[in-house]
């Protein structure tokens, strides 16, 4: 018997191996085939869609973006009026989602750390309460929880009979109002904010240099204190100078107060009920997941680490700050990023409790504008947000040299 491979014409072999058994070739053929399959499928989908658009005269195109939206947006952080364009309305809605996402992440993280630490407490009642909290809130669908909080907040007194605390804090079922900064003019406010950002950059830079100096000369240089002093100092000087130039401080404190016959609260900062319910729901729901992440993170650091740090003479506070916590963070950060992403996405449930987030504005827009284009933009917006979170996670992973 002859070896069949030797008799094959050279066209059917590659590096002396028959092409149908050559690993690299099989891989490439399979890859190309799957790529063609996917492309064909996608083209088929789009072809059908194009046909449907043509055939049933379904509106299509991005020209709607410049048109007036003419629909109210219930709650908005950016200024909005109904004569604004679709594009701007989408920006307003995306800002609404971002605001809830950022505030929600901060609060959920703080609450999550607190509950997670409570769960590890040696106090029986505290740790059991934390366990019940975690097991309840992460096991019930967010939708149900949001509805529940919605009805709880409704049980607060209405605006005219609401609680007033120290003349500055108004709590009622339309929201919470508290004193807040109010810009005296756009120009001074923007200039001052820009200078504050610059001051923070200077402070961080200073901190960085001082830390290095501390390491070089081996004597304390108080990087944190000096950094803060630099930042606050620059901001304060900028404030005084700007006040001098414009004749008025860049910001003043605005106090909330009831206005008009319906007693709506004007002035200050008002967190309306819709946002409040959404935040409460999201924060409680997400914090129960973060609490478990924090617990797992702290438990992942071996006892020996703590003991070693104590043996080196570090104080308990420093042990936690420089020993346990940085190590726990390596375990905590990746799932935490994933929870941040979930919180951002879950804010799309805001519509059921009266918060107009990106998804709800987009769905309303499909009433008067082409649905296909709106959904394309919506997907792009959410993907951008989720990729931003992934990017933050990846940057952190690279910084701490997380392998894998």
């Amino acid at each position, binding site marked *: 018997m002859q070896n069949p491979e030797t008799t094959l014409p050279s066209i059917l072999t590659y590096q002396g191996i028959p092409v149908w058994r050559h*690993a690299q070739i*099989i*891989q490439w053929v*399979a890859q190309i085939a*799957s790529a063609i399959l996917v492309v064909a499928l996608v083209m088929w989908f789009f072809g059908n869609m194009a046909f*449907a658009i043509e*055939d*049933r*005269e*379904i*509106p299509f195109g991005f020209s709607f973006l410049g048109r007036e939206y*003419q*629909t*109210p*947006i*219930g*709650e908005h952080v950016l200024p909005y009026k*109904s004569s604004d364009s679709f594009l701007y309305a989408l920006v307003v809605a995306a800002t609404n989602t971002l605001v809830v996402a950022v505030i929600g992440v901060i609060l959920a993280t703080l609450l999550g750390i607190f509950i997670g630490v409570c769960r590890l407490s040696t106090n029986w009642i505290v740790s059991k309460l934390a366990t019940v909290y975690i097991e309840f809130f992460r096991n019930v669908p967010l939708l149900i929880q949001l*509805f529940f909080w*919605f*009805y709880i907040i*409704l*049980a607060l007194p*209405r*605006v*005219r009979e609401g609680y007033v605390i120290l003349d500055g804090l108004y709590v009622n*079922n*339309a929201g919470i109002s508290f004193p807040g900064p109010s810009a005296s003019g756009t120009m001074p406010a923007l200039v001052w904010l820009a200078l504050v950002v610059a001051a923070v950059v200077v402070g961080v830079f200073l901190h960085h240099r001082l830390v290095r100096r501390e390491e070089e000369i081996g004597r304390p240089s108080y990087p944190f204190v000096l950094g803060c002093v630099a930042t606050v100092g620059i901001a304060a000087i900028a404030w005084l100078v700007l006040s001098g130039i414009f004749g008025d401080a860049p910001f003043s404190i605005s106090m909330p107060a009831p*206005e*008009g*016959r*319906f007693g*709506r609260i004007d002035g200050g900062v008002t967190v*309306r*009920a*819709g946002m409040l319910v959404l935040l409460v729901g999201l924060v409680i729901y997400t914090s129960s997941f973060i609490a478990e992440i924090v617990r797992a993170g702290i438990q992942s650091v071996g006892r020996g680490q703590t003991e070693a740090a104590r043996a080196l003479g570090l104080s308990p506070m420093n042990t936690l700050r420089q020993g346990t916590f940085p190590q726990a963070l390596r375990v905590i950060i990746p799932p935490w990023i994933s929870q941040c992403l979930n919180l951002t996405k879950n804010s799309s449930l805001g*519509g*059921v*409790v*009266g918060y*107009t987030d990106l998804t*709800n504005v987009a*769905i*309303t827009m*499909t*009433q*008067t504008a082409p*649905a296909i284009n709106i959904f394309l933009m919506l997907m792009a917006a959410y993907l951008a947000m989720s990729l931003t979170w992934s990017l933050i996670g990846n940057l952190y992973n690279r910084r701490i040299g997380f392998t894998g």
Partner: protein
Amino acid sequence: MKRTIKYLAGAALIVALVAAMACGQEEPPAPAAVEPTAAVTPTDVMEATAAPTATEATSMDTQGGGRLDAVRARDKVICASRNDVPGYGYVDDSGNNVGFDIDLCRALAAAVLGDPNKIEIRLITAAERGPTIQSGEVDMLVRTVTWTTSRDAQWGNYAQTMFYDGQGFMVRKDLGVSSALDLGGSSVCVTLGTTTELNLQDFSNQNGLNLEVLTFEDTPAVVAAYESGQCDAFTNDRSQLAALGTGLQNRADHVILPETISEEPLGPVVPHGDDQWFDIVKTVMGILIYAEAYGVNSGNVPSAATGDTKVDRLMGLEGAFGQETLGLSETAAQDVIRAVGNYGEIYSRNLGPDGIDLPRENGRNALWANAPCQDCPKGGQIYAAPLR
């Protein structure tokens, strides 16, 4: 090599899963275009129709999309509707979806298939109405849809106004508001994705009211927010204000303001592109209206000629009103009225005394034909193309 096999195994797994999922899908294919012979499927209605009618009906299809044949082949009328508003479409204690809109769908099924129960109700949200009817997946959209020109152009064809509504406001009496124009600076609750929302914005802009608008995805949340005082006023179609008002704890503390800020003609919508189907739906709505005008109800449907020419023509006992051309059976009206009753019966069952108790006497939703004389304005606005 290792990677190849890993990849192939993965691909095989995916293919197997997709195949498994496809098997899990057990919806029988609903052919949109049916062979001409398939139109003679032995349903009750078709047996009653003469064979030439069937071929005539199919020859009409070259102009339309053949939806009638598709419906008969499927043996089911698919309507998009709702289950969350009393009177129009809600769920009763035994789980049945009932209401005014549902009855219109049942009437259509009775006319086309001879059986009012051969319907499938697809539940959709307010915001889904446009995309749903555009996609052509449903035969009729009856979900308290306001007829507007842009919707008529973009969504589908509006067949017939079956209910005239208008948007109003409900407020607490203790606010001392007697007109919607006094609402300046108040906050108003409204349902997301409706014309109500758009009208409210127009009203606020026109009158410089600077209203604060709170939107909610579903109506119970709107009512709860209003009742607890989160918003000062609550706006919706007046019929729904009346219906939902009965659920408030102290109905006497609330008042519906006199202003009606919009026109809201509600009625069924059919997908674009099928004139025959559009005509069928219009005719069925007309049957309901004229049956009431002629005094025919579910209890007294004649099966033999009565001598009253109009009644006999409507009932297919003498003469015709175009049933053949439309592809309906001669006696389609008998099936419809026996199954669901006339317009008045549907109204009183769902919106009238046996439903959410909206007054009809002398209102816009009374029959035009009930006017005491031809020119006096006492009659309502419910009127359809004469059936002849």
